């Protein structure tokens, strides 16, 4: 930068035709001295590089010495421990939705702290449904109903328990759970969907006559619901 500035000023000086020779000599002297300084800096950088290398070598030696000292003081630096430490840094849990680094629990059990946020428990259980972790989802929703039986989302949780079984093609327990939506939460917003699903469960179980009864009830009780339109198609 300095160089180019000097060159510009030099050209100006020449162009304007004033001063001239003395000024020219002064500026070329300055350029020479800059070049000399640059060379010195280069040399110094090279020296510093090798110094860094040497110092790093010293640091490694010291670190090795420190390790042996620590070991003698009772601290263990075993490879196994180091590996365990390293495993902590493996990038398994990543992104918006993380798998448990320890893997899925052998016996699904919703571990709920004493001060549980009902919405968080409900959302986590629903996420397990969408990911196909049905056992975890069922455990979570059952825990939700146990802890918050009067919550606004209780009928939804009961519906998702039915859905958790239905998705696994376990139609008998699914029917039982959907029945609870109708029986325990009558008039709530999941009732039409539960009635429709009860019909589907019965259809899958081979009881088409009873399935039709539920769909007829749905069309009669909730004629404007989307499920009533689906049930009407089934009744044709």
């Amino acid at each position, binding site marked *: 930068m300095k160089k180019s500035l000097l060159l510009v000023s030099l050209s100006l000086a020449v162009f304007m035709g004033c001063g001239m020779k003395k000024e020219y000599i002064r500026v070329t002297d300055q350029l020479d001295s800059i070049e000399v300084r640059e060379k010195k800096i280069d040399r110094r950088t090279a020296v510093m590089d090798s110094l860094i290398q040497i110092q790093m070598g010293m*640091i490694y030696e010291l670190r090795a010495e420190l390790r042996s000292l620590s070991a003698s003081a009772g601290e263990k630096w075993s490879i196994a421990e180091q590996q365990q430490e390293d495993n902590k840094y493996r990038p398994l849990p990543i*992104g918006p939705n993380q798998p448990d680094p320890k893997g899925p629990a052998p016996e699904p059990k919703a571990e709920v702290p004493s001060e549980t946020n009902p919405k968080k428990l409900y959302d986590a259980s629903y996420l397990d449904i969408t990911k196909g972790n049905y056992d975890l989802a069922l455990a979570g929703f059952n825990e939700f109903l146990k802890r918050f039986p009067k919550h606004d989302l209780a009928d939804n949780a009961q519906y998702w328990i039915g859905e958790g079984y239905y998705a696994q093609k376990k139609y008998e327990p699914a029917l039982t759970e959907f029945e609870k939506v109708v029986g325990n939460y009558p008039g709530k917003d999941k009732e039409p969907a539960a009635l429709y699903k009860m019909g589907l469960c019965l259809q899958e179980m081979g009881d088409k006559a009873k399935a039709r009864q539920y769909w007829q009830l749905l069309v009669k009780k909730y004629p404007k619901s989307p499920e009533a339109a689906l049930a009407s198609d089934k009744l044709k």
Partner: protein
Amino acid sequence: MKIKYVLLILLSTILCQNVFGRADVYLKLSTSERRQLELGIAPLQAQDAKDHPEAIVNAQKMLEIIGDDLAFSLYFKLVYPPSLLEGYGLKKGRLDIGAWQMLGARQVLIPELKQEKKKVILKLSVFDLGIQRQVFSKDFEPDGSRAAAHAASDLIIKNLSGEDGVSSTKIAFSLKSGKNKELMLADYDGGGLRALTNFNSINISPDWQPGGGALAFVSFYRNRTDIVSLNLASGQTAIISQTEGLNTSPAWSPDGKSLALTLSKDGNAEIYLLSPETKELRRLTNSWAIDCSPSWSPNGRELVFNSDRPGSPQLYIMDSEGANIRRLTYQGGYNTSPSWSPRGDKIAFVSRIDGRFQVCTIDITGDNFVQLTYEGDNEDPSWSPDGLHLCFSSSRTGSHQIWRMHWDGSAQQAITNNGGSYMPAWGPVQ
């Protein structure tokens, strides 16, 4: 001697701080936060291949692609030796463990060109500095091909993280050419671009069949809308849906057994489920409104879709029987093009914000509406199979290009340079 002990005390203080400081940071990390492995990338050792300059050039080319893949994967934080110090990280041709530890690396990728009999091979190995042993080693042909480089990246990702990488995945999209739009296929980074169709017609909305062997898309080649399947290996096409009226927005179910699609055969646009094998067609939605653009949940039990039943386009979720419909989006007056994350938790979509279309995400619970793009119009988001990245089309540089980014909106980059690129669909891991 005294100086040595002073240095030792000083150093032990630093190391203790380092160790305990690191543990403290680790404890603060929750599972939802990103953790990356610090991976050093050693310079290519090519003493054995001095007589094969072409192999050296090819290997360098491959290493550049591998570096880009590993950095984009989000599993690694790459550590390169400082350019000032040539030969850094190697001591007498061997890995200088201390030097890499000083740079903060925990593992180091060591690329070597080796002469084996009459053949030159590119050996890639990874050395773990913690346990001080090699944790990965594989020989590759240094042919300079992008496919070989991407395959190497995915092998490294799988071995070091246990996860499937997306480096070898492809993106299909629709490219405007005069009055027509033809389907194109590119690597996930835009390389290896090739045409899939040459129908001299409009071909849009590609959707990958699970497994990646075929694409379903909407074609106007018969001067009407048909849903067509294209076998990528044989190039053969077959019409999947040709009902009266519109046949649009195909979406394969995760098990590949059924196709959700939008048909207007009964008057207005509704979502149906088609079994291509049995030809069984089942109607899922039934309203006076336009229902379209279905996208599956990863368990194949639910669909997010677009409906203007509240008076403006909004996102809804229903199960695959068409029951239990509920509204997902309430923010903004125009939300379309939903795409359900393979991780299950988020839905990417397009929202009109201040008169422009922007890619956003929302949790499946309806919480956390997040805007990811800000410049130009950004449309048609599609998730990578690992749910960590998105591709989309953007007009921010003047014409529509295909872009990619991470799930949180970071690292946005264009992967095409021909204008008129729309509707990308990120293919599966194969």
